[in-house]
């Protein structure tokens, strides 16, 4: 198998519920062996995309290929090779967590006993409680253990950590990195940016049923601007005319602006002429990227959301 094979390839996926258009031409590629973060605001279409990938929903239009097969047709064969964690886990009220883990494992075609035992311990899960007695976070843990304990190529995780405490969130991140080291591919839908930043090789941002940006974090950052904060001994008077610095502002001796990577040299040269006494350059955070995409319509009053 080549290293560049796509485990997920979605082209122009469209899905509507009656008059409501949930997915409006989604394109998504996940390469074998990578952790791919799938980011987007609530209701953007993350879960709908994943449910199409699972063959639970039938695509209205577009090409969808999962592990080289058709997710609607080849359900049985494909699902032996993947595991899924829903964002809102609903357990069977009368079954214990342990029974649910074994059920999901068996339906997938077996799970790794040692790994199951280790994960139950690492996530501090009490497997003897009934479904209805678990808190939200603990229900989530049951689904995570069931998915990670199975020996599969692809993990589809739909906001898997909602409800986990910070300690468990850390355990989760370690386990995902471990999965990655074993060569598994992961599609991780999330809106926890630190999680995506810590785990993801590549990121796709979805908004209103369309993927608006995709690439490595570096590539995404290259398109974004760094923030510059400088204290100047001899403040200039013409910052408003500096075309290379966006939103340039001067308050007393403090200069702030956002600058694209290719304009950094020019900006620093301009600033050094005015005697820099202190300087911080912040690379664009994922959060900035995110907000930029989420807020596209914020300055267009009256636009639909």
């Amino acid at each position, binding site marked *: 198998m080549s290293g560049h094979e796509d485990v997920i390839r979605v082209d122009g996926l469209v899905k509507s519920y009656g008059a409501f258009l949930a997915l409006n031409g989604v394109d998504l590629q996940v390469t074998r062996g990578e952790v791919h973060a799938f980011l987007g605001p609530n209701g953007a279409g993350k879960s709908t995309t994943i449910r199409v990938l699972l063959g639970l929903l039938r695509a209205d239009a577009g090409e969808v290929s999962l592990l080289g097969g058709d997710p609607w047709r080849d359900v049985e064969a494909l699902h032996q090779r993947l595991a899924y964690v829903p964002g809102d886990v609903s357990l069977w009220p009368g079954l214990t967590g342990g029974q649910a883990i074994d059920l999901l494992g068996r339906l997938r075609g077996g799970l790794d006993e040692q790994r199951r035992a280790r994960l139950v311990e690492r996530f501090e899960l009490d497997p*003897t409680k009934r479904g209805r007695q678990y808190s939200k976070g603990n229900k989530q843990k049951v689904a995570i253990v069931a998915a990670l304990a199975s020996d599969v190529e692809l993990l*589809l995780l739909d906001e898997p950590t909602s409800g986990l405490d910070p300690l468990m969130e850390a355990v989760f991140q370690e386990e995902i990195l471990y999965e990655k080291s074993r060569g598994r591919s992961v599609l991780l839908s999330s809106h926890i940016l630190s999680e995506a930043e810590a785990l993801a090789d590549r990121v796709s941002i979805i908004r209103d049923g369309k993927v608006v940006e995709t690439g490595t974090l570096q590539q995404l950052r290259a398109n974004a601007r760094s923030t510059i904060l400088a204290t100047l001994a001899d403040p200039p008077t013409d910052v408003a005319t500096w075309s290379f610095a966006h939103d340039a502002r001067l308050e007393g001796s403090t200069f702030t602006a956002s600058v694209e990577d290719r304009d950094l040299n020019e900006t620093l040269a301009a600033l050094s002429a005015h005697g820099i006494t202190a300087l911080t350059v912040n690379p664009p955070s994922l959060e900035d990227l995110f907000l930029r995409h989420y807020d596209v319509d914020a300055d267009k009053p009256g636009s639909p959301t």
Partner: protein
Amino acid sequence: MTRVHMTGGRALLPVALHQDARNIAPWVGLISVLSASSILGYRLVFTDPAEAAALGRTVAANPALALIFGPARDLMTAEGFNTWRAGMLGAFFAGLMAILIVVRNSRADEDSGQAELLASSVMSRPTRLGVAVAMAVIAATLLGLLSWVLTMIFGGDPTDTLFLSMTFAASALMFAGLSAVTAQIGSDARSASTLAIGILGSLFVLRGYIDAVEGPEWATWVTPFGWLEHVAPATENNPWPLLLALTTFLALMAYAFWLQARRDFGQGLIAPKRGPARGGWESTLPGLVTRLNAGSLITWLLAFVVLGFVFGFVATAVGEVLQANPAMAQALAGGTVTEADLTAQFLSTVLSLAGIIAAISGVQVAMRIYAEERNDRVDPLLAGSVTRRAYFSANTVLALAGSALALLIAGSVIATLASDQAGLGWGQVFGQAAATIPATWVLVALALAAIGARPEVRLIGWLGLVASFALTILGPLFRIWDWILGISPFWHVPNVTAAAPDWSGMAWLTLALAVLTVIGFVGFRRRDIV
């Protein structure tokens, strides 16, 4: 008793009513139509007193009818007929309506977490239960009024109809009180409603047994349904038993609030135990489906043992009961009918009835498929290596096997008790029960087809049951045309005790079964999972 505070109730009640109106309205409407339609039907069919008298003889000759509908006090007037036909059935369904309203609005919300939002607002502890019961009281009142008005429009006598309608409302009140209590005892909504409906069903069957064997006077006061019979609309119009019903309601309510004050939110008095850390038989697909339905299936199978005994005992008493009726005794003495004929007729009616009741258990399994989907519990299963066909098959097999087993259990108990009486062999009675299975399956398959292909119209599953009951049990009394009666699958069940049984009906049933099952499977494979 200390005063029960209902802070927040005034704000919650209208919202809750608005939410639940769509669920309540069909019950109120259908029970009222049950009453109004018998006045209309009687006026259309029994125009001649001689025909009404003939109806009286038919009813007297078949204790199965007393078992379902209670004693026929007076079939010579439309009002008397209505009391017989709609009285006990209406009271039963009014009770069922009240149970579902109270559990849905008090306990089910707790399980789903919705109630937590409410409980955290400015609202006193008893408010939610109080609102749920208030909704049942409102539904009971509306039912009484609508049934009264609607029946009068179709020509019912105002006083007689008022008393009949009040028995419906009284039944709804009593069972609202009962379910308010079971909602505190059960550990979740499901066990609360199972407990309440179990008691409702047992009381109804006990009442049926007492009526069918014409038990002693005191026995008719044993069940709340017996009290309502003593109201005797159209013959006595006796208001005092209604007061007894009201007192029962108030006492049950007081007990429910007392229990509620001692219970943790979201928990019952019966605490759930810890379970195994590892999965066993229930961690496979067939195991899971069996496990999810186990509680209700076991309840149904036990209920069918009891039903078998009730039907069987009544069958042994058919001769005695009929001898006590002067007209029937004369017919028996004259040799125009034999006791064995009448017992056989009784058996065929009760086996059809058992078949319809058995179908309820199968329809419940079918409805559960959709309920699990709505609760997001099907996604993780289908995300495993489970095909939709395998998932649907597991449920279909259980729905069909469970309902068939229930029928066979009742059939073997009835055969053991009553086969000699009817002059039939054990095998013939049991065989008749077995021959009823395909008809039961057609009703189950109807629900499966709806759930598989178009869950939005799943109500069809329940309507099939109601229509079969109306056509099979009531249809012949109204002397409806055969082609209409033939809509009910039970009309096509062959009489295996006949010298040369006609098996052609079986072919039609098999065809219907096959078509409906295919619709279910194909539909489920093609549609989106909700």
